[in-house]
């Protein structure tokens, strides 16, 4: 919302474009491992992506709150949608849908499954 951003169209556009490029660069840093899983923050996952919680940031404000909402390591999470303006996002976790801002979602490190990954039933139900 700085002044220079709104004064004329062209600089604003360039800034947008640069931000988009920076984001693309950041995304390219998340490389899949041998099994096709990718380690990345929840905030960068796209609708339809799913994966498991790997860890939470160790000392951020919302750590305990996130834990209590069910973001414990190993929990399966599916990104349901992003709000039309790009923020907040809705995820499915432990059978319910939760919306959170991407700022908070950044604190959750995920292990994203490859798109064609079929979740092994043994992973999240103790084989009961």
């Amino acid at each position: 919302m700085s002044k220079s951003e709104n004064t004329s169209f062209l600089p604003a556009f360039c800034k947008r474009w640069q931000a988009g490029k920076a984001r693309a660069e950041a995304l390219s840093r998340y490389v899949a491992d041998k099994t096709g899983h990718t380690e990345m923050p929840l905030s960068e996952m796209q609708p339809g992506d799913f994966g498991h919680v790997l860890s939470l940031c160790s000392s951020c404000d919302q750590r305990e709150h996130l834990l209590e909402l069910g973001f414990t390591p190993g929990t399966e999470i599916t990104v349901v949608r992003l709000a039309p303006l790009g923020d907040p996002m809705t995820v499915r976790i432990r059978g319910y849908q939760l919306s959170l801002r991407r700022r908070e979602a950044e604190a959750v490190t995920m292990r994203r499954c490859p798109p064609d990954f079929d979740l092994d039933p043994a992973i999240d139900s103790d084989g009961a």
Partner: protein
Amino acid sequence: MSASSVPSSFSPAVASGDGGATRLPLYALVGNPNCGKTTVFNALTGLRQKVGNYPGVTVEKKEGRLRLPGGGAASLIDLPGLYSLTPRSPDEAIARDVLLGHRPDVAQPEGIIHVVDAANLERNLYLTSQVLDLGLPTIIVLTMTDVAEKNGHTVDIPALEKVLGVPIRPVLVSKNTGMDSLRAAIELLPTTPPPPQRDWPLPTDAEIEVKELSEMLQKEHGTRPAQSGMEAVSLLMAETLRPEEVGRWSPAVLDHLAADKANLAALGIDFSAAVVEARYAWAGRIGSQVVRKPRRAAETLTDRIDRIVMHPFWGYIIFFGVMAFVFQTIFTWAQIPMNWIGSGVSALQHLITTHMPPGDLQDLLVNGIIAGVGTTITFLPQILLLFFAISLLEDTGYMARAAFLMDKVMSKVGLHGKSFIPLLSSFACAIPGIMATRTIDDRKSRLVTILVAPLMSCSARIPVYTLMIAAFIPNRRVLGIFTLPGLTMMSMYFLGMVAAFGMAWLFKKTLLRGSPPVFFLEMPPYHAPSARTVLMTMLERAWLFLRRAGTVILSVSIVLWFLSSYPKQPAGTPPAAQLAHSYAGQAGQAIEPAIAPLGFDWRIGVSLVSSFVAREVFVSSMGTIYSVGDRYSSTEEVTSTLKDKLRADPFFSPLIAICVMIYYVLAMQCLSTIAVVKRETNGWTWPLFMTGYMTALAWITTFLVYHIGMALGWGGR
């Protein structure tokens, strides 16, 4: 206020309803938000409810009385919906303190009725694990079993009963099944054995610390053995203790606690994470034992609706449609009953004037009391209709979606997606708008929303704008399709909005700074609204308004009637002179030096003072001064002739008219709003602050506009 620990003081509702008979057992209703808890509460207690506030905080306290099949009764306290007993908001702190018996004003409940959503069992069981740790006799009410079934989940209730060790009663309030069985179970609650002790193990070192601390609590404070484990766990989990908690425990306990925490940290154990993970593991284990569900969740009706309702394009179309409907409801449709009330009040006034000898008493009755009651009840249609709309949106599950869609926009000024509806409602009237802020959990965001809500142009400002525009803004076309009066009116609405968002941003940056409100919002499945819940919410809000704010509005109206009627002038004095010499008139003249820099004279001053009752009084008050009818004439009658008189008055100019409008956009000219803010914030600090900042904002803005306008030579006519 509090302090009394005499058991019979816990529930005035019950005491008064009973004529002070023997104390009823107190049970607490606990559950997640959106689990159907309110519906169960309403079904159990019916209209025998009492809503109040916990002293010193803005958390609502709901109590009700429930009849038991055996002829007895019990009182039921409905705790705020929570996901966990770890206090994170005032609501959660209260709920936890009530359950642990730490509130001085509420006795510890003798039993717990825990509502659990069957369609969402695993997440709900997280709270259950904490509720059972309290070691109080507990019944679990299983709701939404129909939704679970539709989603293909089957819950094995006998198996769940066995693992949890407490009675479970499935209930479907909408189909009226299970209620009798639930009542019977509640009757047996005093003899129900408490649940077994927790069976979610912690790492050994953590277990040792919990055991030591809980034994110490039992010895030092006489904490019930069943509860001490829970207390120990939550003390060890808390990063910092709330001040009231520090005072609760002996220094020995606090020392021991600090040593324990240091010890755990040295061992590299993250105690909170360990507890949360152990609880979720427990919940997951039970979930997989008792719930059978398809491996991949089938697409539900909610998913299908959401695909349209949350669509980037259609989602906003629907959103604006819904908001237009809400706005239409309170802005236009509420006018119909409001007009009925208005004509009812004037018919009553007319009746008394014709049948009662004129005099002070008649004047007090007609223009003080009846007018005051009239003012109060004119708000009722708006409040009822707004809360009808809000509870419909809440109950169906759309409210969470609306907040989701608006959150990004609202977050630009540091607010929460949930601030949108209160601000929108304030276009009709700030009073229902401010009452609607209760849905915002974050205290600071709620306060900021309350503080800026009165800047949104409410319907009471319209008569002021209309008069000033009719008198001074030429009816000229601009750009072919717009007219100057229309544009002026729109600018006033726009100014109010800009001021509201600007001030919200400023407050969030300065006075009420804090980390941006966290937005963790469950998107509940859609379901058909319950007529009972919607009706109860409407009635509850209306009653709260009448009881708390209504009384203040009525008395203030009477005081203002007195101020504008006394001292009495000799009979035959024209109404204009009577008003000018009244206390209100004197006050208006006294403030002239303060408002002269704004280009206002004493006549506007008098109208400013008298319009504190309601902004539209400005018009009738100006009418009185300009001898157009008297102060009881209707606004429309006055406007049509007054605008010519104002135009003929050399004092007035379009610039002054604009200044008057700007002042009315920004100034806190409404005692009813102040009364509501006082009630909603539990004290005089915020209403006074609000009055102060709004008056300052209005004064400075008007001052600048007037002087810049004069300097630019716009002061002419």
